[in-house]
């Protein structure tokens, strides 16, 4: 498992690996929002948690088709499927590698970008917490979508359409945690639900991903 993780991380950070793509996209979205909605700081403060969450979600979405499609194209996926590693473990490791190269940088960058949107002081901690808990679910759901569309050439559009509805609960609870945190309200309920969504997807989706991958590899 470690071998696959190390390889995926190496591939991501080397030339053409797509590391930084999500981060750059996140930066662009957040930087452009104040230009689009105007410099009214009160308005920006109100929408900041939601914008940051949408930016993070779309940045995650952008790199999903790389999770499995590249391995499918060069034949590695067939070879990994016949290797001693169970396919469930392989897709879990791939989701983890995706989170480490896409989700984690977003979590780290979010507070910096919060400044650009005039996020309230109380909100930074909860923004980071909500993203740290929510983005793993985005990676795991995204891996499931990638497994569903792995047989399709240029399946990015279909992948986005399949995955977006599954992302909605994560977005609702994640943004709610960030918003309530920024406004100084209790975050217990959305935080518990966000945690439940993440735990549930991490526990169940690798099995679904492995099952659809087996069908798609036939």
């Amino acid at each position, binding site marked *: 498992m*470690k071998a696959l993780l190390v*390889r995926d991380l190496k591939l991501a950070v080397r030339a053409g690996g797509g590391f930084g793509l999500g981060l750059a996209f996140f930066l662009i979205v957040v930087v452009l929002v104040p230009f689009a909605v105007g410099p009214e700081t009160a308005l920006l403060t109100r929408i900041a948690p939601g914008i940051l969450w949408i930016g993070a979600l779309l940045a995650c979405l952008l790199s999903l088709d790389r999770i499995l499609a590249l391995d499918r194209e*060069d*034949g590695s996926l067939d*070879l990994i499927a016949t290797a*001693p590693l169970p396919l469930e473990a392989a897709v879990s490791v791939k989701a983890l590698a995706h989170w480490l190269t896409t989700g984690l940088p977003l979590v780290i960058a979010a507070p910096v970008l919060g400044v650009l949107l005039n996020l309230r002081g109380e909100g930074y901690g909860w923004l980071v917490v909500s993203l740290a808990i929510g983005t793993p679910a985005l990676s795991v759901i995204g891996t499931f979508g990638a497994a569903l569309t792995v047989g399709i050439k240029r399946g990015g559009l279909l992948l986005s359409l399949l995955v977006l509805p599954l992302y909605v609960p994560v977005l609702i609870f994640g943004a709610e945690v960030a918003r309530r945190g920024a406004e100084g309200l209790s975050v217990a309920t959305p935080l518990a639900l966000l945690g439940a969504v993440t735990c549930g997807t991490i526990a169940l989706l690798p099995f679904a991903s492995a099952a659809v991958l087996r069908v798609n590899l036939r």
Partner: protein
Amino acid sequence: MELIVEDLSVARGGMAVLEGVCFRLACGHALVLRGPNGAGKTTLLRTLAGLQPPRGGRISLDREAMVYAAHADGIKAVLTVEENLRFWADLYRVDAVGAALEAFALGPLADRPAGALSAGQKRRLGLARLLVTGRRVWVLDEPTVSLDAEAVGMFARAVRAHLAGGGLAVIATHIELGLEAEVLDVARFRPRRVVTGDEDFL
């Protein structure tokens, strides 16, 4: 260990391509599959490799003893030759990277990014992967494509060493490898009558 295939029927896209395939392969022996393009060699090998379920029949093969090599080598262009091999060696927990590089004369290329290799060199790297898996049964699909005569010799030597060590190999190839192998022409297992959905209406 023995590979026994009984009355195996394999399908591609829901259509049977081969039916009633039977063979028996003992330790130290190789089986060469022949047949025209599209005869079902790749489908048969993928079924043996466990990538697709058989339509019927039985394969007695421990999946944990088998390694599959396809048309595509699964090489990552941005990793070096050695890193590519090291990954598979770590995955299979066999430390034989040095020997594998040597067997396919890849030593001088070890630090070169795999993307900079020629087609034949890439194929050699793909075949060197077999040696770092430590698996007893090799299931190989057209392993000699884009290899020159010298590299085919290296490959034949590697297969002979593998067989001498008690391994098995099932190889689909059109090239004479100079192996003492049984030859199986898959064309004779093609279904006599093509089953189509229209039959129900007749």
